[in-house]
């Protein structure tokens, strides 16, 4: 079963050259290796800061663009993993191991849905 890990509240991640950058990079890579070892890794990426977001809505057939994220909350989506897990228990176990979670991020775990007839998707 595929699970999407939505990683919130990790906006102030250290940048290349920062003191903790190497340490965190090592941990994040080790986490992906652990996922691969289990055959769970599908994808995972960080997102650029929320200041780069553009929100698109279509109203009366016309696109309405807004600068900024969809929801004005203080917890923003900062990255994701897409993992293939045996069950929710394995997903939650991996979520607990996500390095970002140990630096204050919140991980929302959502199962990927199956839709009959859908001609794409990992599930």
């Amino acid at each position, binding site marked *: 079963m595929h699970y999407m890990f939505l990683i919130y509240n990790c906006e102030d991640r250290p940048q290349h050259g920062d003191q903790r950058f190497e340490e965190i990079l090592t941990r994040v890579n080790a986490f992906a290796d652990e996922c691969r070892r289990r055959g769970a890794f599908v994808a995972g990426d960080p997102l650029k800061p929320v200041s780069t977001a553009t929100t698109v809505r279509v109203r009366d057939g016309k696109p309405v663009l807004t600068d900024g994220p969809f929801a004005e909350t203080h917890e923003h989506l900062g990255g994701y993993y897409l993992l293939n897990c045996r*069950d*929710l*228990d394995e997903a939650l176990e991996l979520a607990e191991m996500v390095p970002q979670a140990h630096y204050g991020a919140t991980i929302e775990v959502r199962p990927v849905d199956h839709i009959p*007839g859908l001609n794409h998707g990992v599930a």
Partner: protein
Amino acid sequence: MSDLASAAVEQVYRQHRTRMLAALVRALGDFELAEDALQEACSQALRKWPRSQVPDDPFAWLLTVARNHALDRLRHARMARAKLPAPPPETTVMSEKQLVDLGDERLSLIFTCCHPALAEDARSALTLQAVAGFTAAQIARTFLVAETALAQRLVRAKRKIRDAGITFEVPADHLLPERLRGVLGVLYLIFTRGYTVPDASLRQEALRLGKLVAALMPDEPEAHGLVALMLLHDSRSAARFTSDGELVLLDDQDRSLWNTGEIAEGMALLDRALRFGSPGPYVLHAVIAALHVQDPVDWSRVAALYAELLAVAPTPVVELNHAVAVAMVDGPEAGLALIDGIAGLDSYHLLHSARADLLRRLDRRPEAVAAYRLAHDLAVSPADRRFLAGRMRSLEAKCHNDSPGAENLR
């Protein structure tokens, strides 16, 4: 013949409902589907058994009929959706033989109902419904919520189990200690819900489920500890209320009303749990409960055990109990200082009634009355409220020299 058959259906259902439901949830991976299928199998049995005869193995008969009914429903649902290529449902559902040979899946059922990914209030409600066979109406009354709200909560939990990939299994070894703690927590919550009312049904159900878990997991001392704890609390239930439903504190209880059978059973279980060494929170709580049925209560041991509990499982309620025990040993001033250092229990009526009691013993009457009033206003159970109102009145009238609010807090 017909009466005989319906009696047979009822008997199998009453005796094996939880096992059949557990097996069906395991086989079908869907709670609601399993429940509907079991209902359908029972109504088919009521129709068919009188005409033919009661099958040799009614348990297997009901399971097989339920499984096949569920399969039909799955097939229809898939056909109705579209002419889409979909795997035949048989590939995801157990065979009849596998299902009937499944064995006892009740433990899996309990672990699933108490899964930490479910909302906390849904866990106890689902456990009461699926494992204990309570109706939604009964559970709603227990939790003081509207039946529709409770029914929604149950449906949401069942769908999450199906859709989020919550497996129907006893968790893997490395997850077991934490998950078992969760299960025991749900059972104890059910028990304590039942502890504030004279009616015994919730307490008895929690005890029955606790014994089931302990029997199915004989090497888990905490499971035995929880059962011992519940037995030792339950043993005093006949003495905890007067015939008019008024609360009676430990010191004032008629000890001849205590259930000596339950005390002996609890003590024996506790001995067994203690033999495993390094006692966990429930075993420690049970040892404390065992000390409370001694006369006189050894308060310095109680205080020491609460201190031990604070080290392994610190909670504000344990802090409060520790403070009350310390007050019994070192005097009310020492207890009061500890109580006033507790954070996060401001709206807990027992904190204020314990404070009130210590203030009363220190002869700080106006403060004591104010604390009793606060406790009274925060208390939910009518018996607690009447008790606290009585305390308030007698203190206002004159300074009573009565015993402290022991046992410890209730």
